C-alpha cells in the first residue's frame, strides 16, 4: 500500500480561482439601496414581544375592565379613571397589611354581620346612635385581613344583587354600612386597602344611580324615548320625574346621621347633582367644607382624596376644591406637627405612620392641581405660592410633606426660574412630616432637569452648600449634594467641587461610614467619574483618591467598575501614573469581588472590565515593561481565570511583536514563552489550556524555540488526555466537537514541527492514536474523524515536499529532515496501516445505522483520496461500500457521489 504522491504547487495552481481586483470591500457597509431595503424588511418582520403585547393585548384588556366599571355612564375622562385605578393599585401595594387587623366593634359588626339580605333591621337613628355607644365600650376586635376583604366583596355582590332585584333601599343601606367602615381608622395600615375596596363600591353605586336617573330622564315609564341627554346636558332638559328621583336620593343620603358616611355617599352620587342644577361647584365646595368636620386626620385625608376623584367626573374643570383641600390639609398637618404627644385619632404617638398613610392622598392632590399646564400660573397664585410663576414668595413656611409633592409637580421652568426662592422655601419649611434634606434633593433633581435654564447657578450652589454643611448627619449632607452634582459639574464649578470634596473627606475621617452613606457617596463619585472623559483629571482632583480609599464593599466595587469603564473608553492607556492608579483600582475591584459568590453576572462584569483594562494598557516599545506589567497582573488578579487567558494572548502578542521588531531578543521571547508556560497551568479548564498551549507552541516555533514548542506540545497532549477526565461534565456534542477540531488543528500543526529524534518522529500521531483507544467518551463518529485527519497527516508526511513549512530558518520540516530515511518511511507505513485497520474496525461499532453508513462513506472517500489504488485498497473500499449500501440503501446521494469518486480514482490516478 502506498500513498499517492502529490504536487501541492501544481494542485494549487489548478484549483485556485482566478482573482479579480475590486474597488470596494464586499463586506464594507454602504448606504446602498439593497441594505436599506433589508432594514425595512426587518422592521416589518421584527416582533417585539413586549411592545406587541402592549398594543395588541394589554390595551383591550384594560379597556374591558374600565368599560365594565363605567357602563356607558358618566362622561368621566378616560384618562383620569385609568390614573385613579392605577394609583389605587399602587396604594394597596404600598402598605404592608398585617394578617390580623384590629377593628372597632362597630366595623366588626358589619364584617361579621348577617349575610341574608333584607334581614337588616330598619333601626331608627336613635337606636343606631345608642348601639354605637354601646359597642364602643367593648373596645376593639380582631379580624383577619382575608375575612375583611372577603366580606367587602360579599357586600359588593349583595349591593349589586339587591339593585338588580329592584331593592334599591337595601343597596343603599348596605352601601351606608360600607361607608361606615371608613370611619374606623384603627385599622391603620389596612386603611388604604379598605379605602380602595370601599370606594370601588361607592363608585359602583354612584354609577348605578346615575344610569337609573339618566334612564328616567331619557325614557318614559312605558319605555318610549323622551330625549337624549348629551354629555354636557343642562339641568332644565331633565324631566321632573327624573329630578324627583334624584332629589329623593339626595334626601335619603342627607338623612344619614354620621358625617363621614353621609359625605362618602353624597360624593358617590355627586355627579347626579347635574340633573338638578347646572352649576354644581357650590355644592362641591360645600362638600370640601363638610370634610373639615372629620377630625380624624387619616379619615379626612382619604375623604378629600375621594372627593377629588369624584370631582373628576364633572365636566367643569374648576380647581377651587383642590386648592381648598390642600389648604385644609395644611392646617390639619400644621396642627399635627405642632403637637407632640397628643392622641390623634387612633395614632397615639405614631405620627410618622399616620403621615406616611396620608402621603399618597397629598401626592394625588398635587398631581391633580398641576395636571393642566395652562393652569400652572393660576394655581401658583391660588396656592399663595407667589404672585406669578416668575415671582414666587420665598419666605412662607409650608408643611414639608406638602412642599415635597408641590416641588415634585411644579413645572421645571418654574423651579429653575425661582431656584433661590424655592431654596428659601425649603429652608423655612422644616418639620417632621417629611425630611427636609429630601426636599433639597427634590429641588436639585428638578434643577438638573432644566439644567440649561438655570441662571443663578453660583448663588444657588452656594446656598445649597451652606444648607448641606449645616446638616449634622453625613448621609443627609451627601444626599443633598448628590442631587446638585450634575449642576456643579455641568457648570464647571471647580471651586465648589473642591470645597465639597474636602468637606466630604473631612467628615469621612471623623465618623464611621454607614451603608446608606456609602451608597450616597457612591452616587456622587460615580457622577464625578462619568462626567470627565479623562481619568487623569479625576485622579488629580483633591481628595478624590483619598475618598476612594475610604470606600469599601460593593460601593467601592461599583465605583471601580465605573472608573474602569470610563478609562477603557479610550483607545489606549499609556500614561504610567494612570496605569498605576487604574491598576490599584482594578486590584481593589478584584479583591472586593467574592468569586465564590453565586452572582455570576457581577463577577463577570468585573472580570471583563479588568480584562479590557489590561488589554488597553500599552507600553509602546517598552516590551519588557509590558511583560512586567503582565506578570504583575497575573499576581494581582489571581482569581480571574478569563483574565489569565488574556494575559497569555497578550504575552504571545508581545513575543510576536518582539520578533518583528529586531533580531537579537531571543531572551525576551523566551521569557514571554516561559511566562505562558507558567500561566497556562493555572487555568482550570483543560480545553482552554489546550488552545493556549497550541497557540504558544506556534509562537515558540515561530521564534525558532523548538525545545519549547516540544515541551508545549507535550503539555497539550497531556491536556488532551485529561480533558475528559477532569472537565468531567462535558457531555455535549459541541464540546466534544471542539476537542476533535483542536486535535485536527494539532495534526495540521505537526507538519511544521521537526520530528523529535529521541521520542521518534511519529511520537505525537501515535500518542493521539493510543489516546483514541483509552478515551471512552470518543464516539465512533469522532474517532473516524480523528482517524481521517491522522491518515491525512500520514499521507502528507509521506510526500517529498510538504505543502507548508515553518518560517524560521532554523526549523526544518520532516520532509527535509528524514529525506530518504528508511526507518522513517517504515514507521510511517506501519502507523498508517494501524490507522487504516482502526478505521475498518470502528465503523461497525457505531450504533446508529444511518451514521454508520455515512462514516463508511467518509472513510472510503478518505482512503481513496490518499492511497494509490491496489487490490487491498479496492477490497477495503468495496467492503465499506457494502456497509454503506446496507445502511443507507442504494439511492443515497452521498453514496452515489462516493461511488463515482472511487470509480474515477480506479480508472485514472492523479486525475483531480
Amino acid at each position: 500500500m502506498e500513498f499517492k504522491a502529490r504536487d501541492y504547487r501544481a494542485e494549487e495552481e489548478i484549483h485556485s480561482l482566478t482573482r479579480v481586483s475590486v474597488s470596494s470591500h464586499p463586506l464594507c457597509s454602504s448606504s446602498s439601496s439593497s441594505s436599506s431595503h433589508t432594514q425595512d424588511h426587518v422592521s416589518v418582520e421584527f416582533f417585539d414581544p413586549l411592545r406587541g403585547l402592549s398594543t395588541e393585548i394589554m390595551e383591550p384588556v384594560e379597556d374591558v375592565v374600565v368599560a365594565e366599571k363605567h357602563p356607558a355612564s358618566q362622561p368621566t375622562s378616560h384618562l383620569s379613571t385609568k390614573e385613579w385605578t392605577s394609583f389605587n393599585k399602587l396604594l394597596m401595594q404600598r402598605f404592608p397589611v398585617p394578617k390580623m387587623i384590629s377593628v372597632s366593634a362597630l366595623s366588626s359588626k358589619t364584617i361579621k354581620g348577617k349575610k341574608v339580605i333584607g334581614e337588616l333591621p330598619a333601626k331608627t337613628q336613635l337606636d343606631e346612635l345608642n348601639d354605637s355607644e354601646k359597642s364602643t365600650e367593648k373596645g376593639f376586635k380582631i379580624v383577619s385581613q382575608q375575612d375583611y376583604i372577603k366580606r367587602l366583596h360579599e357586600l359588593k355582590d349583595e349591593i349589586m344583587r339587591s339593585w338588580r332585584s329592584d331593592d334599591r333601599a337595601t343597596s343603599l343601606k348596605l352601601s351606608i354600612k360600607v361607608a361606615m367602615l371608613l370611619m374606623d381608622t384603627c385599622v391603620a395600615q389596612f386603611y388604604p386597602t379598605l379605602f380602595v375596596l370601599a370606594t370601588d363600591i361607592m363608585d359602583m353605586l354612584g354609577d348605578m344611580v346615575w344610569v337609573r336617573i339618566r334612564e328616567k330622564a331619557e325614557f318614559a315609564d312605558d319605555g318610549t324615548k323622551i330625549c337624549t341627554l348629551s354629555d354636557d346636558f343642562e339641568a332644565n332638559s331633565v324631566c321632573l320625574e327624573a329630578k324627583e328621583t334624584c332629589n329623593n336620593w339626595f334626601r335619603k343620603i342627607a338623612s344619614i346621621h354620621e358625617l363621614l358616611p353621609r359625605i362618602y355617599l353624597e360624593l358617590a352620587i355627586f355627579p347626579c347633582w347635574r340633573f338638578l342644577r347646572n352649576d354644581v361647584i357650590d355644592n362641591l365646595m360645600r362638600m370640601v367644607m363638610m370634610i373639615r368636620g372629620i377630625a380624624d386626620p387619616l379619615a379626612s385625608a382619604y375623604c378629600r382624596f375621594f372627593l377629588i376623584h369624584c370631582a373628576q367626573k364633572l365636566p367643569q374643570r374648576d380647581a377651587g376644591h383642590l386648592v381648598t383641600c390642600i389648604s385644609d390639609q395644611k392646617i390639619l398637618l400644621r396642627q399635627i406637627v405642632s403637637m407632640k404627644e397628643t392622641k390623634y385619632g387612633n395614632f397615639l404617638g405614631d405620627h410618622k405612620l399616620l403621615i406616611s398613610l396620608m402621603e399618597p392622598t397629598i401626592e394625588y392632590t398635587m398631581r391633580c392641581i398641576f395636571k393642566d399646564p395652562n393652569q400652572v400660573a393660576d394655581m401658583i397664585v391660588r396656592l399663595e405660592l407667589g404672585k406669578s410663576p416668575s415671582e414666587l414668595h420665598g419666605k412662607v413656611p409650608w408643611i414639608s410633606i406638602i412642599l415635597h409633592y408641590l416641588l415634585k409637580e411644579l413645572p421645571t421652568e418654574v423651579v429653575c426660574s425661582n431656584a433661590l426662592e424655592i431654596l428659601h422655601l425649603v429652608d423655612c419649611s422644616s418639620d417632621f412630616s417629611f425630611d427636609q434634606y429630601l426636599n433639597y434633593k427634590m429641588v436639585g433633581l428638578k434643577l438638573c432637569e432644566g439644567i440649561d435654564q438655570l441662571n443663578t447657578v453660583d448663588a444657588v450652589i452656594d446656598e445649597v452648600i451652606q444648607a448641606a454643611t449645616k446638616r449634622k448627619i453625613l448621609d443627609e449632607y451627601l444626599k443633598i449634594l448628590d442631587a446638585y452634582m450634575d449642576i456643579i459639574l455641568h457648570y464647571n464649578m471647580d471651586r465648589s467641587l473642591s470645597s465639597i470634596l474636602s468637606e466630604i473627606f473631612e467628615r469621612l475621617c471623623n465618623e464611621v461610614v454607614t451603608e446608606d452613606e456609602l451608597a450616597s457617596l457612591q452616587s456622587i463619585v460615580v457622577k464625578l467619574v462619568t462626567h470627565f472623559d479623562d481619568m487623569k483629571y479625576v485622579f488629580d482632583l483633591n481628595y478624590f483618591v483619598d475618598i476612594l480609599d475610604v470606600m469599601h464593599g460593593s460601593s467601592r466595587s461599583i465605583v471601580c467598575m465605573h472608573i474602569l469603564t470610563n478609562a477603557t473608553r479610550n483607545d489606549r492607556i499609556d500614561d504610567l501614573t494612570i496605569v498605576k492608579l487604574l491598576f490599584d483600582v482594578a486590584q481593589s475591584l478584584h479583591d472586593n469581588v467574592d468569586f465564590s459568590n453565586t452572582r455570576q453576572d457581577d463577577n463577570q462584569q468585573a472580570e471583563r472590565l479588568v480584562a479590557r483594562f489590561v488589554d488597553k494598557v500599552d507600553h509602546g516599545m517598552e516590551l519588557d515593561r509590558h511583560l512586567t506589567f503582565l506578570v504583575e497582573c497575573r499576581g494581582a488578579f489571581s482569581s480571574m481565570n478569563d483574565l489569565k487567558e488574556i494575559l497569555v494572548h497578550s504575552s504571545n502578542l508581545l513575543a510576536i511583536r518582539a520578533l518583528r521588531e529586531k533580531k537579537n531578543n531571543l531572551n525576551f521571547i523566551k521569557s514571554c514563552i516561559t511566562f505562558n508556560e507558567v500561566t497556562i497551568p493555572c487555568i482550570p479548564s483543560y480545553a482552554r489550556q489546550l488552545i493556549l498551549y497550541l497557540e504558544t507552541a506556534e509562537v515558540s516555533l515561530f521564534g525558532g524555540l523548538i525545545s519549547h514548542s516540544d515541551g508545549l506540545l507535550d503539555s497539550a497532549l497531556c491536556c488532551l488526555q485529561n480533558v475528559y477526565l477532569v472537565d468531567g461534565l462535558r457531555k455535549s456534542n459541541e464540546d466534544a466537537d471542539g476537542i476533535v477540531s483542536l486535535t485536527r488543528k494539532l495534526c495540521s500543526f505537526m507538519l511544521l514541527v521537526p520530528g523529535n529524534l529521541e521520542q521518534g518522529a511519529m511520537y505525537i500521531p501515535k500518542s493521539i492514536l493510543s489516546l483514541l483507544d483509552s478515551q471512552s467518551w470518543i464516539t465512533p463518529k469522532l474517532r473516524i474523524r480523528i482517524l481521517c485527519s491522522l491518515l491525512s497527516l500520514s499521507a502528507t508526511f509521506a510526500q517529498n515536499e510538504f505543502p507548508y513549512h515553518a518560517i524560521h530558518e532554523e526549523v526544518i520540516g520532516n520532509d527535509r529532515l528524514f529525506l530518504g530515511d528508511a526507518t522513517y518511511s517504515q514507521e510511517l507505513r506501519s502507523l498508517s496501516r494501524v490507522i487504516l485497520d482502526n478505521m475498518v474496525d470502528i465503523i461497525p461499532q457505531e450504533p446508529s445505522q444511518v451514521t454508520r453508513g455515512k462514516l463508511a462513506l467518509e472513510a472510503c472517500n478518505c482512503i481513496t483520496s490518499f492511497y494509490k489504488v491496489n487490490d487491498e485498497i479496492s477490497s477495503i473500499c468495496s467492503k465499506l461500500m457494502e456497509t454503506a449500501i446496507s445502511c443507507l440503501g442504494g439511492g443515497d446521494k452521498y453514496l452515489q457521489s462516493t461511488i463515482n469518486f472511487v470509480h474515477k480514482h480506479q480508472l485514472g490516478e492523479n486525475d483531480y
Partner: protein
Amino acid sequence: MSVEIKLSRSNRTYRPNEPLQGKIITRLPCSISHRGIHVTVNGSVNLQVRGGSAGFIESIYGVLKPIRIVKKTIQVHPSGKISAGTTEMPFSVVLNDGGKEGKFYETFHGENISIQYLLHVDVVRGYLHKSLSATVEFIVESELVVLPEKPISPEMVFFYITQDTQRHSLLPQLKSGGFKISGRICTQCLVSDPLVGELTVEASAVPVYSIDIHLLRVESIMVGENIATETSIVQTTQIADGDVCHSLPLPIYVMLPRLLTCPTMFAGPFSVEFKVTIVVTFQTELYNMQTKSDPRAFRKWVAMESLPLELVHSK
C-alpha cells in the same frame, strides 16, 4: 282579581285647588258585574296624646277624635260590568271646590299629630261578593296663592355657645377650661330647601367629641283646657366628628325630610312648630358609662343651643 289606583303624578303631590287625577286599574280573570265604582277622598288630622306629657286623664283618652279636613265620594261609573283582563278607568276629583271643607293642611307625619290624605276606591259587587277596594295616600301641599314670593329673605341668627350660656351644670373641667363655639344659622327656612348655616369651634379646652344638629318638632294639642306639648327629634345630623380644627368654619347643611316636616302651623286645636338644636358633645370618660340615654337630656359633657325654626313654603 285586583284593583289598583295609579295617580297622575309620580310624587303623588297635589295642591288643594288642583284636580286629583289618576286611573283605576283592574286586573280580572273573568268579567264581573258591579253596582258602581266610587272613589273617596278622606283627609283628616289624627291626634293622640301619650301618657306622661299631658297628664293622667289624657293618657286614658289616648287617641282624640280626629279632625276631618275633607271627605267626599264621587261615582266614577254607575253599576255595570268590567270585562276580563286589564281595564283602566280615569277619574278626577276636585279637592277644594269651595267653602264647606276645612282648611287643607299640608301632609305631615308626626309623633302625635298626623295629617293624612287618603284616596280610596270601591268596586261594590252586591251581597254575595266581597267588594274590590284599594287605598293610596296622596300628599297635599299648600296652594300657591297663599304662599309668599320667593325668595324669602333668609333670616340668619348668630349664636354663641360657651360655658356661660348653658343652663345645666357642666363638668368642672369644661367649666374651668371654657369653650366657645360660634356660628350662624337660618331660623326661617323653606321646606324644600336645606337648612343652612355655619359653625366654628373657636376655642375649647376639652376636645370636642361630636357636634350634631338636632331637628325637633314641637307638637301641641288642646286637650280640654290644657295644651299638651311634646317635643321630639325628627332627625339628627352630625356636622363634626371628633376634635375638629379650631377656627375653621364648618358648614351646617341639613336637608329637611319630607312628610316628617311641614310648614309651621298654628291651627286652633293643635299646632306644629319646629326647633333646631346645636348639640356639642365633649370627650369624657363619663360618656361611656352612660348606657341608654335621652339625647335631649342635659348631660354634663354636652353644651347646646336651641333656636326656633320657622318652616315655610314659597312659590
